[in-house]
């Protein structure tokens, strides 16, 4: 089925998107509140937390252009050296911009 892109149809589509998005945000919390947290579950959660970030970054590292890859390398190096996110992120952005400019 489709919605017409009138004002009412657009608003209905937006509200539906909002509900689906909130269900994903609250759903994980709800499900876990009903799972007893033993040592295995806790180890899964601890490993999964970082893994989410790794999985989000992977496409950028693999399919991004060399500017994007160099940005990740710069961010990693500055973060290891300084342990401060803002300089690390700035280094990444500047690296990508320069790489694409030159």
């Amino acid at each position, binding site marked *: *089925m*489709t*919605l*017409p*892109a009138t*004002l009412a149809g*657009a*608003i209905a*589509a*937006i*509200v539906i*998107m909002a509900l*689906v*998005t*909130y*269900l*994903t*945000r*609250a759903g*994980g*919390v*709800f*499900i876990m*509140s009903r799972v007893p*947290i033993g*040592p295995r579950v*806790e*180890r*899964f*959660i601890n*490993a*999964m*937390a*970082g*893994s*989410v*970030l*790794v*999985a*989000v*970054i*992977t*496409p*950028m*590292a693999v399919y*991004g252009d060399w*500017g*994007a890859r160099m*940005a*990740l390398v*710069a*961010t990693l190096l500055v*973060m290891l050296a300084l342990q401060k*996110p*803002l300089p690390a992120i700035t280094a*990444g*952005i*500047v690296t990508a*911009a320069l790489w*694409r400019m030159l």
Partner: protein
Amino acid sequence: MSRSTQVARLDLAGIIVGIRRMAPLCLFVVVFGLAFGVAALSRGLSGLEAMLMSALVFAGASQFAALELWGPEIPLLPLIATTFAINARHLLMGAAIQPWLAHLPPAQRYASVVVMSDSNWAMAAADYQKGKTNVGMLVGGGIALWVTWLFGTLLGVLFGSGIEEPQRFGLDVIMGCFLLAMLVGGRRDLSILLPWAAAALAALAAMTWLPDHAHVIVGAVAGGLVGVLLPARKGEKP
């Protein structure tokens, strides 16, 4: 006292600290909000509709994806499927910090995740790992991001000739660099590299063989499973 028994709390002071800590990243979020506002107008949405989507959905990737489906008719099932697929990672993100939120009253718990997104979740997860008890990073950071996202969209709607190619200025790499910084700033235990390697490989495979956007869920679950399979470290209390 093990981490899981710490009592989380949420208060105004913590929220304000969260807002302040998230402020630097918010400067970049304005640019993406602006890009979304411009893109939305070009797809035929009105300014009001663009603002409403940014306010209610607050999920950039799925908002941009929805624009690809927008036309004289809006196909409902593809819209729902796309929105769910792109945001499914929130299921795992919420699950990962649930032990932390468990001590909040339910109303606070489920209200807090209204503003959960990659950035404030990454910082909140790091707080949880470090044993911090105030959930203000999640809520304050989320509020800051939400306001900025809305403001950026407004700018895009009002000044339609804004930045239409953020990648030219390296802005498309902001999110990846930010998440990597959060990752590296977290725990320093080298054994965590195994689950992360599994996550990267699984995400790679998923990108090749599975539908778009499945890679995050697949990678996260793979990393979590490897974490379970690793023997518990000495001294780690169950």
